[in-house]
């Protein structure tokens, strides 16, 4: 595995996706889940990781544009070829992690009272 991390590319998008999908997740949890997704992306087979980074780079730019919230929400809810697969991968990793770590989490990401 190469030494560099995809953190800069993947983390902001993962956080944005989590706040759109699961607004009740606490900041600390969101950070923890985003860190987990980055770690898994870093472990991807080399070819796949390269592909993910090619898709993640423009997504990272979109996330950085002020007022891009709507565009992001649209992207994460529409299964576009390739971009859709990236979104699905991040979402799958995140959800599996959240409900394994905190099985009682409510569907909006909040913790039960």
């Amino acid at each position: 595995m190469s030494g560099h991390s995809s953190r800069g590319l993947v983390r902001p998008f993962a956080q944005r996706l989590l706040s759109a999908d699961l607004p009740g997740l606490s900041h600390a949890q969101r950070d923890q889940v985003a860190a987990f997704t980055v770690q898994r992306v870093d472990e991807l087979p080399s070819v796949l990781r390269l592909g993910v980074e090619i898709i993640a780079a423009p997504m990272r730019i979109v996330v950085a544009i002020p007022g891009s919230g709507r565009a992001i929400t649209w992207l994460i809810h529409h299964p576009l070829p390739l971009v859709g697969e990236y979104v699905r991968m991040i979402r799958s990793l995140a959800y599996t992690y959240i409900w394994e770590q905190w099985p009682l989490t409510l569907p909006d990401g909040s913790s039960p009272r």
Partner: protein
Amino acid sequence: MKHASTTGADAVTHAPATEALYDAEVLIIGSGAGGATTAALLAEAGFDVLIVEEGDWVEQGTVVPFSLDQMNRQYRSGGVTVALGLPSIAYTEGRCAGGGTEVNSGLYRRPPAELLDRWRTQYHIRDLDPDEMYAIAEEVETALNVTPVPGAVSPASTVLQRGADALHWQNSESPRWMKYPAGGSAASGQRQSMTRTYLPRAQRAGARLLTQCRVRRLSINGTRASDAEVVLADGSPGRIRFRHVFVCGGAIHTPALLQRSGLRERIGDTLAVHPTVKLAARFPDPINMPDDVPVHQVKEFAPEISFGGSASNPGLVALSLADNWGQFSHALQDWERVCVYYAAITSEGKGRVKAIPGLRDPLVTYHLTARDRQMLRSGLSRLALLMLAAGADEVYPSYHHAPIVRSTADIAELQRSFATTKATVMTVHLCSTVPLGEHPRCAADSFGQVRGMKNVWVNDASMLPDAPGVNPQGSVMAFAVRNARRFIGTERPRG
């Protein structure tokens, strides 16, 4: 020359960085279903065997089955591997001592007689005798303690049986390689994976096992391979000289390694898989068993389509609901009443494995045919019907914008809106990248010897001529034993 440990799991050692040269009469690369079996037979026949395994030895019981921790420790790339295509197909492979046998569901099926017959004629496999194969299958079944559950099967398994019975569909319990206490329930079984069976057997017969050691490439001169370049646990390079080599790295990494070694002809061009689509179903009563899978399978439409149950801990239930989270997420609050089920097809599509110079892992692609797509649609619809027949109150198919299925009327909407490009398509059965047989498209001869090579064999899932349409480990092991016996009959140990 250095030796790795020769006894049980505790004594498995990693090669010290300074001792980088090994010698073996037979090198076996990979310790999964194919490699462990080959190692045991050859070591017992008196060959000096060294097994190298990229993953670590993980003692059973030290990881929770189907957990992220298990994914970290026993799967390749944390369980996130994908064959690219439209749609891409997510797949998983074991990467640990024992390979896939340590993490899989343990469901055993013999290679069906019609399959062996078709393989023999279509791929011109010499001396493929069904009687011999069934004698071997029996031997493997004894060694692995293949058995039905003596006590109660899980409620999630009963769902499959109940639904199929209501529809008059053929179904049966698949026996598993498990040891149960007398009268024990499904959950009480202990998996008879390779670290419990063939690997200790190989080690008792003198085989050495080197874990956390990855073979990068074989050095080849003309028609012979002479040594393997390896990377050891601490990242340092090593070299293993051998007389014969069996490549048993699984259907993705066996062809990738052969290609990196310069062997490319017909290798890696014919990847076959059993693609699956999934759904989650909610029942009135608790059915979920987080760390086990159902043992029943529905075979009414086999080998084209089969139905079974998947691991369903809360994380995996969430995963199966993720494609239509807005509509489905409420089901997660009832996860104890929810279980995930799959429809698997025997695909006519093909995939490719290509080693890319400069990259560690190969590029894997897979193309589903129009007929495959149709079968997946049909499989998912019938699976939804099966769930309703078993008493599900809501069914959640895993694809974008899928409807909740509450009655048979909703299945029409499922059929209309389903598209494989919207679905989560997955597989855990990969094979056929170095198919055996005398047919010109086969990359190895009838006993797994790689074409054009005098001392290189494959003896794992990559040698199966195409997708078997049943759980493959039984077929992999039966062929591995057959081929190992042929080798023993033609080559003499150095002594």
